[in-house]
């Protein structure tokens, strides 16, 4: 498996050769910041295009096909439109919180990017509580949504944001429990460690039934966490016009829009980290030749490929199912998903204790 850390090491050493230590770190942080923003923007554009095409396929349509070849430039055109749109100044709003909310949402999703296992040696920070950090920062997003709904001084946004608050706080329990289940199996909270543990077999195969159950629960809770259909109640367009971001315009709206797509990527990315081995290629014990061939596919491709595949499933949900009602949504979490994840956690611990996993 090609370790890409030689690139990062080379940059680090080159900078150190003519800069003092503190300046090196500063320059590297800047590079990473710019790189991250670039990846962020490109991924968002890709996802917008991707969802449109996938959705069009479900609906017997073609999707974007006019701007650029196969409509590839459509999302770029949309981005520029969004950038040059006016930020409408509203009366009777809490200006500071209103302006702060979209940044909170976008910062939450950007910080989660820092610990994703992009490739072999291509992780921004790898510390021993990586997955814990990820859960923590992704919860900041709900604060942004609540603020957006509250500060807009609008009844639709208020109902939308309260729905969103209830929904995200509830579903984080399931997410947390499934993550703990998988952490039990891996024995580490470090993202790099979790990936390394899956070098022989991915957790979804290794962990037996509890891993499969955890995967299903994670995908459901993750969809709810991203506020996507069939859990898109916070912005249920047929009930609350646009939910918590009804009053936002221009790029402020754009931030919410981007964050939604990037959260989709993060949820899929974390799912691939926990269940499908992160950047780890598909290895099957005993099949050495097969494993070697798999190793030739770059680790970055593995990670992004898995994430996009899992996103496809989530998009598939959205364009197939009708929306749940708020009480049904909360009942699903508190009456079904949470008890099942708790039992599942015990099951996983038993399996590990008795060594029944592969």
């Amino acid at each position, binding site marked *: 498996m090609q370790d890409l850390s030689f690139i990062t090491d080379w940059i680090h050493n080159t900078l150190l050769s003519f800069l003092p230590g503190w300046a090196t770190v500063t320059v590297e942080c800047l590079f990473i910041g710019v790189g991250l923003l670039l990846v962020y923007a490109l991924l968002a554009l890709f996802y917008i295009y991707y969802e449109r095409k996938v959705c069009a396929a479900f609906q017997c349509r073609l999707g974007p096909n006019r701007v650029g070849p196969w409509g590839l430039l459509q999302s770029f055109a949309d981005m520029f439109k969004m950038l040059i749109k006016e930020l409408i100044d509203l009366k009777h709003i809490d200006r500071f919180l209103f302006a702060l909310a979209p940044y909170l949402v976008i910062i939450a999703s950007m910080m989660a990017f820092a610990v994703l296992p992009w490739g072999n040696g291509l992780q921004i920070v790898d510390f021993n509580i990586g997955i814990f950090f990820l859960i923590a920062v992704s919860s900041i997003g709900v604060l942004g949504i609540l603020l957006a709904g509250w500060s807009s001084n609008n009844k639709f946004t208020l109902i939308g944001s309260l729905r969103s608050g209830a929904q995200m706080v509830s579903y984080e329990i399931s997410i947390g429990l499934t993550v703990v289940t998988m952490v039990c199996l891996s024995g580490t909270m470090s993202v790099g460690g979790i990936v390394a543990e899956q070098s022989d077999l991915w957790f979804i195969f290794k962990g037996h039934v509890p891993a499969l159950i955890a995967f299903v629960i994670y995908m459901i809770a993750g969809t709810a966490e991203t506020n996507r259909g069939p859990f*898109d109640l916070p912005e249920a*367009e047929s009930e609350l016009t646009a939910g918590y971001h009804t009053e936002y315009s221009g790029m402020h709206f754009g931030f919410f829009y981007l964050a939604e797509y990037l959260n989709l990527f993060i949820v899929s990315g974390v799912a691939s980290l926990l269940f499908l081995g992160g950047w780890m290629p598909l290895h099957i014990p005993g099949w050495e030749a097969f494993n070697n061939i798999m190793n030739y596919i770059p680790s970055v491709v593995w990670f992004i490929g898995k994430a996009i595949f899992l996103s496809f499933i989530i998009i598939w949900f959205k364009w*197939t199912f009708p*929306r749940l009602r708020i009480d049904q949504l909360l009942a699903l979490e508190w009456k079904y998903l949470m008890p099942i994840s708790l039992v599942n956690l015990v099951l996983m611990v038993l399996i590990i204790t008795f060594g029944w996993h592969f």
Partner: protein
Amino acid sequence: MATITEKIGKLFPQATVATVDGVPQVSIDDKDWHALAEALRHDADLDMDFLVTIVGMDWTETLGCIYYLESTKNHLLCSVKVTTTDRENPMLHSVADIWHVAEIYEREVYDFFGIIFIGNPDMRRLFLSIDWKGYPLRKDYDEDPALNPISIESERQSDTTDTYVELPDGKIEKKTVEIFGKDDFVVNIGPQHPATHGVLRFRTAVDGETIKKIDVYMGYIHRGVEKLCEKLNYPQTLHYFDRLDYFSGHNYHHCVCNLIERAAGIEISRRAKVIRVMMDELGRIASHCLFMGTFCMDLGATTMLFYTLRVREQILDIMDKTCGARMSFNYECIGGLMADIAPDFREDVKALLAILPANLKEYDKIFTGNVIAKNRMEGVGYISKEDAVAYGVTGPSGRASGWACDVRKTHPYSIYPELDFEQVTATEGDSMARFKVRMREIEESAKILAQLVDNIPEGEYCVKVPKVLKLPVGSWFEMVEGCRGTFAVYLESDGSTKPYRLKIVPPCLPLAAAVDYMTSGQKIADLITIGGSLDYIVPDMDR
């Protein structure tokens, strides 16, 4: 019919009974009207439980109302005429306590004629703005635009309503009632809202996610069609009937044409009759397809819209070829049809019938069987058969509650008696039942089309009709089954070329008026489900 005449003659000797257009018409004084209404409603033989409509009338010396009643048991019609000579301060007794739907119908009469109904809990303007001057359907209405200028101010809201109560000593007292409580959290769902299917406004008082009360605010697309019709000659009035419920254009035209042809004594060819029925049923399939698509979209299942629109497009193409339009067809005319069917009409209909069963199966699989859809629809917006009748919820929505109210069966018109089709009913009375009834109605319509497609007789598509059409003095009442329920037209002629009064009875007005009752205590999301499953069309209720 004899029983009605006899019975009323016995109970109310002061009332006079005549037969107008085959329907017994009782004329009675206002002071006895409420007692008569009670008798008509509760008498075991008469059992007039369905108030079809209230026609407000201005006969220049007198103002009054004609109430059309129907018994849901034997489908006998009966009408009651109540008049008042007081033009300054006309008052009649309300029957809203006997038939729920009277509440909204009386508001409509008040809006157009200024007749106050004693005992109606909500005497506000219905369609016109609250500071409108004059009552437009009165014959002495002043149309000077200076009186009612177009306002550039925001429209004033009515947060209170008036109600007139009769005190024991016979005096009438006016009371002002607040619509919402002081602490109610009122959300405006509409007028510009994706789920109201038009420009309709629900002022919704919510407690968290639970709905406490809904005040339906309509009139945003009120065009005064009834008033406009009084200035047009008969063939001209037809054009408005495509623009009420724009998905039932054929059915509505059919109704008015039948009515005018009956009044003028015109007999149309069988070819025209068959084509009219075929167009009605094609329109019904298209309308129900669109209902399924938009209803699923309201519930968040956007993809379904594209699947149902695919079928609807095929129907619109058939219409386009024959009528030259995809909407506002203006195809049926007095005496028959505007034009003959397109040469490949038969092949197109057959192609449609061939693809329908597979598509319906697919809809069932993708949506009706879905567990989320079931949870969202089953038990939501329940309305019992009795309530459906009392609120005048007709059409597929009423049939879902077990009320067999299909006019094609209860008051057969055109060639429907010869056709073999079922009246689709269900007993659940919830949103799921309303959805399923419509799905099955598509099958029944397809059955009708299959019977007719190879049996379109030769003949002329339009018979000769006098260039200037005058109707004799009299009044007529005609009902058809629109795509959303019972559609009726009341016409009164003074012998000229223009209608003296043309009253449209839209099925969607009672549907919208029943929303408050059906949503009370449910969630906000259920309002969307219920509204969607009732499938009202706003231009139809606003006219």
